[in-house]
């Protein structure tokens, strides 16, 4: 506790220092690094301490907000989130120093770092706040500071628009949270989380609160169809910010839902169904849209939606288990969700950072303009590959472990639950399988087009690998991904512990051993795989010794004049699936057909339209604009009419109230 307070104090000090260092960018970098390290370090240690010693605490700081106390606490769930927050924010921050150096807007660097610390601090407060008012305060602090982080390159119109969309979405979501917390607080008689947990909520109220929470937190988390800000904001932000946004900030929505489940406990039976359905739609929708993207960070942004979908599936099945008294299923589902939160923070952070490295060197994120970068950016490429393998949920990497837990919970749900849930759960399993397959396609596309084959532009030869301070954070993230992938026991047991804390009733520890045993076996089988691979590599090296190895061009099937531009593009690669889901994706094609006998230019461009954005939200916005435009004639400029308004209103009130 003391350590955590120290961390908060350090960060505040850092914020103050940086606010004063506007004109000294180099100084600002150092000061930022020092305070970031100290602040993240102490918070990280306090989180680890909580996880290891298994004791949570709640404490009240000597300070009072107008409507509540500053109560903070770290329990298991908070600690897990705190772990991801501090780790990723620290690494992304370190990366950010290198990323922003020598870029444009040097004079804003101190402000940027300052806001980064504000953002970090509000993230830490969000997961540790134990009072609704403090929570909302931190929540809005998070939204606003991240808005300014996103709009760092604000000379660009698109960036400003993206930021604005994000801020508006975030704030409207927050307004839903206001109502939600007020409803909870009214019932509990206090805005304190502890009191809320102790209160009893009628089922009806629980349902309303659930809906409000799902909307309010869902906007942040990026549930489809509330996700529209996400694919715009992530590409707009500097890469280290995208990493943090995608890695931890959208998880705050998940944290909120988990906290809500912990407080309300009993929900109407349709709630898990809704959560599962959201998971299915977001997961499959996210990955399908990702498949249609041509821009690397936009692609990654849609993958965030997909992963949020997977997490929602975990939560959904967990909640189902909780409501139907299947504690094992609930624990596994929640643990899967929690672990995936952490894992996603790691591998998505890694992916965004390595995408940032690519963009920093090539100045473009268009996948189809790149190619062959593995030769020029070997570290970035290798680390991106690790991230890709992890996000596809393939064995040996962390994504698999959490997806495996979610699968496990779902499969156990299939043969435990009554008919109606089983249909949805079956669908969820299929969706998860489809997500896996599509993600694989998407990341082979991304990795293959960007890093493999030949460069599609001439400038590639000048590219240099980024500096070590940028590579090192990525390497650490990759290390964590592999560590959890091969030695999952530690994190899985932490997450199981956390999941048990989510349940209202205590689960015995024998259960946990049962749940953990297959994980140990899995480690064994993974080692078999590793062993075989090592054996094969060694064997190959031996066998190759006395064999001829020749170098030659790629076999062009008889075509002699192949050029790099003839390589299969990302769009073509994705096209079989995009075509198959044409209707869902609202595929738009622009074609210029060959005109003369010797046509000069032929053009094919395809674009995937985000249906909920274009056919729902934009229309609503346009409608709103139109209605407001019409109503502007109220303010027509004639004083006589204005006077008449007064009397008409008076008259109406008289009729209403006096007769």
């Amino acid at each position: 506790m003391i350590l955590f307070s120290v961390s908060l104090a350090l960060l505040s000090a850092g914020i103050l220092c940086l606010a004063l260092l506007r004109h000294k960018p180099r100084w600002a970098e150092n000061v930022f690094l020092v305070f970031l390290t100290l602040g993240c370090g102490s918070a990280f240690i306090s989180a680890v301490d909580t996880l290891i010693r298994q004791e949570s605490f709640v404490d009240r700081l000597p300070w009072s907000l107008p409507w509540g106390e500053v109560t903070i606490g770290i329990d298991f769930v908070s600690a897990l989130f705190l772990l991801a927050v501090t780790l990723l924010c620290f690494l992304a921050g370190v990366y950010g120093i290198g990323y922003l150096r020598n870029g444009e807007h040097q004079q804003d660097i101190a402000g940027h770092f300052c806001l980064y610390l504000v953002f970090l601090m509000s993230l830490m407060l969000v997961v540790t706040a134990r009072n609704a008012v403090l929570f909302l305060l931190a929540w809005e602090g998070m939204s606003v500071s991240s808005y300014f982080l996103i709009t760092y390159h604000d000379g660009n119109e698109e960036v400003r628009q993206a930021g604005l969309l994000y801020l508006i979405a975030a704030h409207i979501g927050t307004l839903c949270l206001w109502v939600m917390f007020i409803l909870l607080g009214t019932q509990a008689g206090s805005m304190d989380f502890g009191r809320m947990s102790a209160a009893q909520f009628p089922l009806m109220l629980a349902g309303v609160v659930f809906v409000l929470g799902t909307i309010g937190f869902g906007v942040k988390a990026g549930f489809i169809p509330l996700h529209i800000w996400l694919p715009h904001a992530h590409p707009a932000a500097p890469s280290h910010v995208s990493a943090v946004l995608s890695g931890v900030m959208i998880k705050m929505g998940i944290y909120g839902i988990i906290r809500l489940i912990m407080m309300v406990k009993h929900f109407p039976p349709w709630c898990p169904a809704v959560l599962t359905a959201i998971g299915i739609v977001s997961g499959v929708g996210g990955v399908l849209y990702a498949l249609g993207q041509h821009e690397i960070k936009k692609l990654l942004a849609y993958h965030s939606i997909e992963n949020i979908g997977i997490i929602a599936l975990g939560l959904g099945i967990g909640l189902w288990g909780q409501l139907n008294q299947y504690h094992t299923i609930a624990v596994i589902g929640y643990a899967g969700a929690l672990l995936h939160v952490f894992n996603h923070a790691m591998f998505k952070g890694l992916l965004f950072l390595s995408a940032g490295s690519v963009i920093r060197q090539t100045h473009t994120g268009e996948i189809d303009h790149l190619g062959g970068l593995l030769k020029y950016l070997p570290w970035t490429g290798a680390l991106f590959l690790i991230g890709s393998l992890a996000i596809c949920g393939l064995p040996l990497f962390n994504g698999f472990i959490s997806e495996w837990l979610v699968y496990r919970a779902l499969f156990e749900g299939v043969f435990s639950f009554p008919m109606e849930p089983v249909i949805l759960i079956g669908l969820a399993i299929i969706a998860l399988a489809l997500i896996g397959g599509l993600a694989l396609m998407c990341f082979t596309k991304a990795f293959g087009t960007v890093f493999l084959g030949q460069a599609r532009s001439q400038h590639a030869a000048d590219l240099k690998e980024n500096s070590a301070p940028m590579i090192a954070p990525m390497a650490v993230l990759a290390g964590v991904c592999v560590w959890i992938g091969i030695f999952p026991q530690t994190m899985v047991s932490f997450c199981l512990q956390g999941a048990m804390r989510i349940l209202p009733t205590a689960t015995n520890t024998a259960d946990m051993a049962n749940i953990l045993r297959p994980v140990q076996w899995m480690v064994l089988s993974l080692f078999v795989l590793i062993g075989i691979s090592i054996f094969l590599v060694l064997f190959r090296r031996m066998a190759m010794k006395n064999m001829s190895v020749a170098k030659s061009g790629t076999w062009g099937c008889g075509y002699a004049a192949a050029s790099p531009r003839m390589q299969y593009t990302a769009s073509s690669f994705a096209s079989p699936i995009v075509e198959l889901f044409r209707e869902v994706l609202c595929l738009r094609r622009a074609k210029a057909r060959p005109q003369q006998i010797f046509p000069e230019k032929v053009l094919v461009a395809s674009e995937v339209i985000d249906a909920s954005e274009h056919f729902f939200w934009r229309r609503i916005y346009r409608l709103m604009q139109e209605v407001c435009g019409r109503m502007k004639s109220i303010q027509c400029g004639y004083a006589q009419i204005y006077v008449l308004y007064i009397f008409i209103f008076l008259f109406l009130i008289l009729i209403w109230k006096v007769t």
Partner: protein
Amino acid sequence: MLPIFSHILFVLALSPLLLGVIGKTKAFFAGRWGPPLLQPWYDIAKLFRKGVVYSTTTSWVFKLTPVVVMATALASCIFVPWGSIAPPVYFWGDALLFIYLYGLMRFFLIIGALDTGSSFEGMGASREAAFSCLSEIVLFMDFILLVMVSKSLVLCNMLNTGFFSSWLSMGPVLVLVAVSFFLVMLVENSRIPIDDPNTHLELTMIHEVMVLDHSGYDLGLILWGSYIKLFVLGSVLVSLFVPAHLSPLTGVTFFLCGMGVLGITIGVVESVMARLRLNRVPHLLIGAFVLATLGFIVILLKGA
């Protein structure tokens, strides 16, 4: 450790034979004598002795691919029972690892293909990725059915516990599972009617075109890996039909006979059918999915 080794060795040894059986059957239908039963073995041996040619475009990813393909294929076999012999490794949830190992294999096959920068290999990779998405959901649907029947998430239990009772009560479901699984197996291993391993037109191929640039030792590993994959998936299918609680020897015999029958069946199918048009392949998979879903509905209505 020993059971794992022996299991792996047996698979290594036996898997090319299944291809031999298929080849013999096809030859029989074509009215030829055909290559010897051990021809796949000879092929592999030949490839292992040859030199290697690498494209200048490729990187270490290309060289890693064969190793991963072989390793994942071998690792996947340790979860599959042989008749009544339990697999060396089994645990709650191993079925998922089993499926995802193939995912890993596929990932590397695809990026290996993309590493060459050849548009043909890219094309093949794209198709492989697209079709396997669909085949994977069929596979999962089948697994859902098996899980519901067996109430277990251990692959060997899903396949052959309570054989008679489950066939008695769930016969129709298991038939649906078997049929759809058979289709998935064909897709996964790029057999006719989805893909023709013997074709020579690069534009229409799927699997074969992805490994165009591999040669010598590497190609040998990939080929062997794909034999193993066919063998392992086949053994999953066959295990469905092998009664449990037989003595080990009878069980294994039963199993090996089943594998033979499977080889012949594949051979027959490949002899009597033509390759589908590429854009029809998804329809086949969707058909398989519908079959499996039908099974799901049957189970739900029966209230298992």
